[in-house]
């Protein structure tokens, strides 16, 4: 049944994955620079004047931070990592390598096209680009190409899987590949919202073909994509948590079936709940907001399955390593492996992120925190911790694997993961508290006139947390760069890194075949999206009013 436990990627496959990561890490290195600058500004230390004329405003820096870290770092890392999980999981090369090359270079062209107007301060509209704040049209073209490129790479994975399916009828799709496919199919459906927004409204408007936009409809389109966007970031981390981390911890996946059920539920439920980002919008009926709030609660269910299954897998691993008692298995986990410590700490931070997420989703309770610093704090526990710290952890084995190297410093890497954890606890806690006190998000609080004196301690804590995070981020970048380019770290015969593919306690082939069957889930997903979004889309598009001419900030 499932044999061939090892498969070596070809040299060209490795370099194709590597170049994805290279773009991801460069985006991270540049985008991260502006995070601490915002945090320092909060306590009155404003470095932005020193950056003129390269960076002309706080918001230009904030746009770079959001676009490069949240959109570019993630998308390039994810498409690269999922290329590997497709090839390695299926034990076969891509069906159409050229198609994936085209997808990748489309993303690169899009990145350059979007980056130039941002650097020229002609797209300081933040990564949500809410119209009628207007950007240079190339910003919209660029983002479109990044998304289209990621679609094409996803098609490449799907074609490869179909070919594998023909060669392997009745065999369960390997979990790491399965999770990657779910991610890309969900992404394809989810990005239709922002695609329609940009192609039918923003580009014609930025080109002057139409005089104005409908900002409310644009928000509805945007958040159709905006929430599943976070699952596009998160699911590849889940691929690692389910299909790799148990092996790295010295154990097996607790339940292959439930892992698949969780992925299916994420496909089903990621999209039809975007109105929970629009609870305070004037143009969406309260009833629909309420329906989406309930649907948002339902997507908490597969997250809770994930929490149980991943922790149970880790507990088995810890006990196999000699851990005793209720919690004695925890210290027995291989905390000295930076890839493991990164992902364990990411999981702990995500626990707090999940609780905050339930708060955000809770309809009227959302009124307390909407558009406040709480939201940015939450976002940093989710995408900047559960996702980014997991991706750093994955990089700690993936880069040595791809480059045939030893990691430059494992010790430095373990310290880096802990610094991220501590820095993020301080930063995100301060941001959550500030949000509860009423501090707006995405605002240079150091210069805002309405800040009470009592907030200064929390503002200072964001700066301290930000400084620790900055040190941690550049320790990561440095470690990866040294590993990447060093000639002295070539791994010897016994030192080559293997891809950590976890087995499950019950072999995957015992998982019900129904859990490997796409058609009913896809029909259900499309049907649920039509029910949850159809009536409001018909109503809002039917009443479209392109009366907002807008301005370039």
């Amino acid at each position, binding site marked *: 049944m499932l044999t061939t436990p090892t498969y070596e990627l070809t040299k060209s496959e490795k370099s194709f994955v590597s170049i994805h990561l290279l773009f991801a890490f460069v985006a991270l290195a540049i985008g991260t620079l502006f995070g601490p600058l915002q945090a320092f500004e909060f306590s009155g230390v404003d470095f932005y004047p020193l950056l003129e004329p390269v960076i002309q405003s706080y918001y230009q820096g904030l746009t770079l931070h959001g676009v490069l870290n949240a959109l570019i770092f993630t998308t390039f890392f994810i498409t690269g990592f999922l290329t590997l999980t497709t090839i390695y999981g299926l034990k076969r090369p891509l069906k159409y390598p050229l198609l994936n090359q085209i997808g990748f270079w489309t993303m690169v062209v899009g990145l350059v096209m979007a980056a130039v107007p941002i650097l020229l301060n002609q797209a300081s509209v933040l990564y949500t680009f809410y119209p009628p704040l207007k950007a240079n049209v190339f910003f919209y073209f660029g983002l479109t190409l990044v998304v289209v490129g990621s679609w094409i790479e996803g098609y490449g994975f799907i074609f490869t899987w179909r070919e594998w399916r023909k060669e392997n009828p009745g065999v369960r799709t390997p979990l790491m590949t399965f999770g990657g496919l779910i991610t890309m199919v969900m992404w394809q459906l989810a990005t239709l919202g922002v695609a329609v927004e940009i192609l039918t409204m923003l580009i014609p408007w930025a080109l002057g073909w139409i005089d104005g936009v409908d900002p409310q409809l644009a928000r509805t389109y945007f958040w159709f994509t905006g929430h599943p966007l976070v699952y596009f970031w998160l699911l590849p981390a889940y691929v690692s948590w389910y299909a790799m981390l148990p092996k790295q911890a010295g154990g097996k996946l607790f339940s292959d079936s439930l892992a698949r059920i969780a992925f299916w539920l994420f496909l089903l439920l990621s999209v039809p709940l975007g109105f929970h980002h629009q609870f305070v919008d004037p143009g969406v009926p309260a009833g629909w907001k309420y329906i989406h709030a309930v649907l948002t609660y*339902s997507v908490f269910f597969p997250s809770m399955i994930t929490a149980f299954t991943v922790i149970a897998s880790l507990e088995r691993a810890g006990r196999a390593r000699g851990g005793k008692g209720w919690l004695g298995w925890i210290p027995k986990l291989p905390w000295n492996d930076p890839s493991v410590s990164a992902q364990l700490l990411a999981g702990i931070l995500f626990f707090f992120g999940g609780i905050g997420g339930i708060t955000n989703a809770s309809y*009227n309770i959302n009124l307390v925190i909407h558009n406040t610093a709480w939201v940015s704090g939450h976002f940093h526990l989710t995408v900047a911790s559960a996702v980014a710290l997991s991706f750093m952890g994955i990089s700690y084995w993936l880069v040595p694997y791809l480059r045939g190297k030893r990691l430059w410093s494992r010790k430095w890497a373990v310290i880096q993961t802990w610094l991220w954890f501590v820095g993020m606890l301080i930063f995100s806690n301060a941001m959550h508290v500030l949000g509860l006190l009423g501090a707006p998000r995405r605002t*240079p609080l150091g210069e805002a006139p309405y800040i009470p004196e009592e907030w200064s301690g929390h503002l200072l804590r964001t700066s301290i947390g930000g400084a620790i995070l900055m040190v941690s981020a550049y320790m990561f970048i440095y470690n990866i760069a040294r590993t990447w380019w060093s000639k002295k770290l070539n791994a010897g015969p016994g030192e080559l890194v293997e891809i950590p593919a976890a087995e499950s306690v019950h072999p995957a082939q015992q998982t019900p*075949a*129904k859990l490997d069957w796409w058609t009913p889930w896809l029909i259900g997903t499309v049907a649920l999206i039509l029910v949850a979004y159809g009536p409001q889309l018909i109503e809002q598009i039917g009443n479209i009013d392109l009366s907002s001419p807008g301005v370039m900030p």
Partner: protein
Amino acid sequence: MSEETPEVSAETSLHIDPYERNWMRLTVVLLVVFATAVTIAGFALGFQVPSPEERVDPRTVAIGDGPFADPGLREYPDGSYDLYIVSQMFSFSPNEVTVRAGSEVTFYVTSIDVQHGFKLQNTNVNMQIVPGQVSKLTVTFDEPGTYDYICTEYCGSAHAQMYGTLTVEK
């Protein structure tokens, strides 16, 4: 994707550990409790989110005869108020308002340029201000004091300066 039904092997079974089954039950109970709580708060106790009020033309809403052409307070005989506010880069108009303690104030806020936010500190009034739409929420002021209303959505270079103050007198 795959059109044909995969063969179902006799050896397969959906194995769910009893602990995990209980965990899933607990999750469902927890979510039902949360949903019930927000439902009661929203629909029985009146903690409500904004809902569509009115469509306007952002280019003309602040000129002519409408209430936004002359923004500010409208007092009613029963002591309640309507408060019309126009948002624009980078101010609220009016930016100073005074009402009596114990009064009920209904906010109507719109924008004539880009999106803004309207958050009245230390209350549940929190609204996205979208050009072409009117955002509406009602609040009763029991405690005298001053309440800032701040712009919570990025609207351009001086976004951080954009706020107003509502005073509640005895």
